[in-house]
């Protein structure tokens, strides 16, 4: 019975993936990719990876959707959205089929990997959720570098701005009817999202959740508030927002150095301080992830978009 459910789900995932690559029109592809993110989130739920399901639900169908649809809108106003039907490409099909077949072969041919048993190490990690323990303690290097990669991507996006737009607020100049449905929605949703996002970070220490998931939810409701005209998008040069961007990496690095100073080693948390240290890093990281993701999706300041 549960295999039938997984088969049905995977058939839908594959069908939607195929639909996002086939046919004409990138708008349809973007919509299919939004539904794809949702179905993959259900797939992660079936695999028992609840933290991943949460991240995929928030990012895959939420933020990526806004990003792709906004991009399509901009391209349409620049008259670059049209796509002609491309013919079937045999070499590409051979390449894709070959890659898929070799992965399928690897699944059956390679030995089952032996997962390191973390249960003995978990009591020293300071948190009960093994995924959070891996992210913030056992493999803190990865997470630290990743938070810096996010900043680099944001700087890359900002470099796309034209000189004349540099001092303008980020993204397009969003406006909405003050008493309209969108504005009301933009007032109701963010408080709920704020509570839920903070809850996810807090709960992530022991059960499903964490800085990435909480930060994504906060970024998403922040975007809703900005698109509804409730909240003004920041400018590149605003100090407080820049401070929020680097808060997470700075606190993370600082705690790493403190660990080295205490003799435990860089990015190694002493067992007694692990829980408060992880919660502090997570709180700072959540702020930075939320602001970085929201600004990434908003895009560079773009005054020219008004006329184009």
């Amino acid at each position, binding site marked *: 019975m549960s295999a039938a459910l997984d088969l049905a789900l*995977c058939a839908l995932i594959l069908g939607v993936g195929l639909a996002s690559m086939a046919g004409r029109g990138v708008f349809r592809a973007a919509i299919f990719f939004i539904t794809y993110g949702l179905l993959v989130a259900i797939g992660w739920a079936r*695999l028992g990876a609840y933290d991943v399901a949460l991240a995929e639900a928030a990012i895959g169908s939420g933020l990526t959707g806004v990003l*792709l649809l906004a991009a399509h809108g901009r391209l349409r106003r620049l008259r*670059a959205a049209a796509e002609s039907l491309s013919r079937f490409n045999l070499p590409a099909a051979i390449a894709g089929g070959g890659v898929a077949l070799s*992965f399928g072969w690897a699944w059956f041919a390679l030995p089952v*990997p032996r997962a390191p048993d973390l249960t003995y190490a978990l009591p020293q990690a300071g948190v009960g959720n093994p995924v959070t323990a891996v992210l913030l303690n056992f493999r803190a290097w*990865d997470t630290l570098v990743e938070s810096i990669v996010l900043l680099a991507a944001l700087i890359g996006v900002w470099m796309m701005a034209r000189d004349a737009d540099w001092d303008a607020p980020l993204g397009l100049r969003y406006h909405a009817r003050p008493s309209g449905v969108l504005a009301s929605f933009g007032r109701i949703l963010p408080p709920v999202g704020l509570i839920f996002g903070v809850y996810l970070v807090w709960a992530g220490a022991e059960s499903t959740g964490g800085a990435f998931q909480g930060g994504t939810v906060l970024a998403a409701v922040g975007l809703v508030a900005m698109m509804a005209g409730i909240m003004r998008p920041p400018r590149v040069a605003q100090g407080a927002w820049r401070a929020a961007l680097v808060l997470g990496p700075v606190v993370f690095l600082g705690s790493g150095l403190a660990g080295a100073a205490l003799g435990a080693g860089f990015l190694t948390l002493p067992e007694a301080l692990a829980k408060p240290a992880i919660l502090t890093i997570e709180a700072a990281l959540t702020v930075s992830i939320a602001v970085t993701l929201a600004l990434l999706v908003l895009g560079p300041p773009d005054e020219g978009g008004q006329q184009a």
Partner: protein
Amino acid sequence: MSLTIFALTGAALIGLGVYGLLARLHLLRRIIAFNLIGSGLFLFFGATGARGEILDPIPQALIITGIVVALSASALAVGLVVALAQGSGRASLPEDEDAEGRAP
């Protein structure tokens, strides 16, 4: 059984993404193809991590960071595509255009 279904779905998605990345020329479509490859890899990796007796949290942690990085890479790519369209009025690469200089 279920793990095999998900792993093979992941493998097929990677292949599908590779096809789209090579065969489709509109750059927004290619961004979606790139995301499809990433997501297929994550599914394959996640199914592999769930194969042992216990659910391995390390692949899960890496996949979460991977999902966030994929979003930031997509945002950067979207920025580049919009900048290209602002400059040239097209959303496909010059080397992919046909003899009349039109986007295919």
